[in-house]
Each structure stands twice: as C-alpha cells, then as structure tokens.
C-alpha cells in the first residue's frame, strides 16, 4: 500500500459547502452561459447592455452570489487538490492564506466591476 492517503475530509463542513455551492453553480453557470452566449451573443457585448442587466437588483444579487460561490468552490477545489497531492506543514498554511487573500481580491474586484455597471458609487 502507498503511504499517501487523501486528506479530503468527507462529511466535514467544507465538504458540504463544496457540494452545496456545486448545486447552485450547476444552475447559475448554465444560466450565465445561456444568457450571454445564446440569448445575447458574444460580439454584441457593450457597456450599455452589461449596465442595463446589472441595474436590476435581482440580476446584481445573483451575479454577486455567483462570484462568491464560484470563488469558494474553485479555490476550495484547488486547496483540496493540493492537499491530495500531499501539501502539509508550513507550506500548507502559507498556501491556504495566499488562496484566501486571492479570493478576497477576486471578490472585491468583481463587486467593484458590478458596482460600476450598476451605477453604485462604491467602485
């Protein structure tokens, strides 16, 4: 038997969150692709059209939630992949907090962009 086992904590809180965000993302990512590639087309994108969508509170809220869940699901997935590869000790702590910082920057930048489109002063 090999020495390295998966440290993926099946049944834990992060495990459950990874699955809950997966279910949400399945629906919202399909909607996102459908709306922005099939209803509207890639070569028709404009600031006006993006702003028009983002000015609706329901669309703005959905996109912010989409950004937060996608960031969590993706970054937590990367972290789990690295743990499976045997990441441990100080390296694990450094990478964990680097990923947390990258997530915060990504979410902040995404919300600034959404605010710029929605006409919200904070951007």
């Amino acid at each position, binding site marked *: *038997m*090999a020495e*390295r*086992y*998966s*440290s*993926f904590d*099946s*049944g834990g809180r992060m495990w459950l969150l990874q*699955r809950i965000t*997966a*279910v949400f*993302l*399945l629906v919202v*990512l*399909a909607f996102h*692709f459908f709306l922005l*590639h*099939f209803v509207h*087309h*890639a*070569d028709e*994108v*404009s*600031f*006006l059209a*993006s702003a028009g969508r983002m000015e609706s509170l329901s669309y703005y809220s959905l996109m912010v939630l989409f*950004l937060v869940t*996608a*960031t969590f699901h*993706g*970054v937590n*997935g*990367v972290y789990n*992949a690295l743990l*499976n*590869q045997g990441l441990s000790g100080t390296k694990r702590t450094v990478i964990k907090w680097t990923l947390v910082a*990258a997530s915060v920057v*990504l979410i902040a*930048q*995404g919300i*600034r*962009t959404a605010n*710029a*489109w929605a*006409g919200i002063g904070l*951007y």
Partner: protein
Amino acid sequence: MSQSYNRGLIEDFSRWREFEAGMWAWIFHKFTGWVLIGYLFTHIAVLSTGIPAAGASEAAISAGNDVYTQTIVSLEGLLLVRILEVGLLAVAVFHMLNGTRLLLVDLGIGLEAQDKSFYASLILTGAITVASVPTFIAGAF
C-alpha cells in the same frame, strides 16, 4: 462511514494504462477545475475594464467607444478567442456533468453504473460542444 482511497499522484502518467473510468473521471474533473478557476481570475480581470469605462462620457458609452466595449469587441474579433471559448464551454460542460455524477455518487445513486455515467458525460459534453460551435463562432468572420 466515509473512506479515503489512495488514488496516487496525478503526475504518475506512467500508470495511465492501469486507469479505469473512475480514475479518468477524477483526472478530467481536476484538470477542468484548474482551467475554470484560472479562467475565473482572467474573466474578472477583463471585465474590470468596466471600472474605467464607467467614467467615460455618455456619448462615448452610447457610441461604444468606452474601454470595456472596445476591449470585449476586439477580443471577440479574434478567431483564437472564439476557439478558446468553445474549449471553455467543453471544459465547463464536462465539469458540470461529471460534477452532477459525483453528487449522485455521493448520495449513493448509480454506484454500479459509475463507468457508464462517465462515458455518458463525455459523449454529452462532445454533443453539446459541437452543437454550440455555430453560436460561438457567429460573427467571427
């Protein structure tokens, strides 16, 4: 009780002849996951051109002369970008279909058909991707 399995290192490509459907599903899910998180960061970076664009004059925005519209239009004008978008769709569709399969497996549904559901995910990904090519390429020429 949950149980952890030793799946070995993904870098051990010499073992690929030993892989069964479940191992390929695991590798593809991991690969598509890395692509998608990489794309998410790139996507937000490109969309961030909306921030300076918000400061443009109404006339410039109405005419589509703002930096956001110009960036997206010039990117979408590149055939390479359109092809990469088709690739992104394929990657996303596989991750979604295989992810659904994993959720079902977690719930104990279809455990005996894990290999068949992986092959179905692959075939469906191919079909959806091919069917989407005309929409994704429209206007690129």
